[in-house]
């Protein structure tokens, strides 16, 4: 686990230092990464909510969160 994390951090550092990306590619990669992160979060939340009352609470939370985001 630690070795894999270290290898990942090293690869990320090398890419950040030496990879030359144009702005469009960099922006695209950023958006794809954020989108995939959001997909992972939603998948995990749906999986743990199951089909019970917890799913309704999840939906209620999303609704309240969107309302707060609009009002913010």
């Amino acid at each position, binding site marked *: 686990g630690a070795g894999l994390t270290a290898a990942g951090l090293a690869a990320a550092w090398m890419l950040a230092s030496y990879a030359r990306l144009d702005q469009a590619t960099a922006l695209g*990669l950023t*958006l*794809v990464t954020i*989108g995939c992160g959001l*997909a*992972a*979060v939603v998948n995990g939340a*749906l999986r743990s909510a199951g089909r019970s009352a917890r799913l309704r609470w999840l939906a209620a*939370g999303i609704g309240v*969160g969107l309302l707060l985001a609009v009002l913010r």
Partner: protein
Amino acid sequence: MTGGWRALLRLFAVQGTWNYERMLGVGMGYAAEPLLDDLKTVDPVRHSEAVVRSTEFFNCHPNLAGLALGAVVRTEYDALPGDQIARLRTALCSPLGALGDQLFWAGLVPALMGAALAAVVLGAGWWAVVAVLIAYNAVRLGTAVWSLRTGLKTGMRVGAAIGGSWIPRWIPRAGAAAGFAVGAAIALVPVWYLGGLEPAGIIGTLGVAAAGVAVTRWFGPVLTTVRFALLAILLLIFFRWAGL
């Protein structure tokens, strides 16, 4: 019986020597030692047997281990047969594991994490993180004290005590709070994160997220979200290299 506070402190390190052979067994034995001290003068033979029994295989949720520890120590002082104590210990593994997982890992922790994320987005900053740490550890400490006391008080009747306690009532509440808090965070955090982008960027990101959810749920365990993410990144790099 003395040694309660030392046993409680040692319970916080109950996973310190977790291993596949005995799992929490050694940690439980270490925590039981102060409680079993008085047995040395009362019945030295029983004390040796109790110490050995206390380190045998055991596993449960670490935050509820005090229930099992207290109950088993109480049965030692009640001079119950050794095999009956071993059966009680074994019988407590699964229920305490399941209850603890539902209450803490699927309830309290995601509820606090979701609430903290929402609070950070709404402007609480670092105070949200501090509040989460304080709240979780307050519940953790309170549960540890309650569980050891209840176990020591009830002994063989610990099963009925757990059934009639606050734990079964609070599991659904914790689950509901977790669902709500995580849902609020799911809505608030992306809006905050993507706030500075152009509409096309926001739509693209949400499109990737929606495709990720749909595709990974359709293709199940073969296509995980991590694999989808790697595939999406490779596709993007390919399209950019091809000039698209």
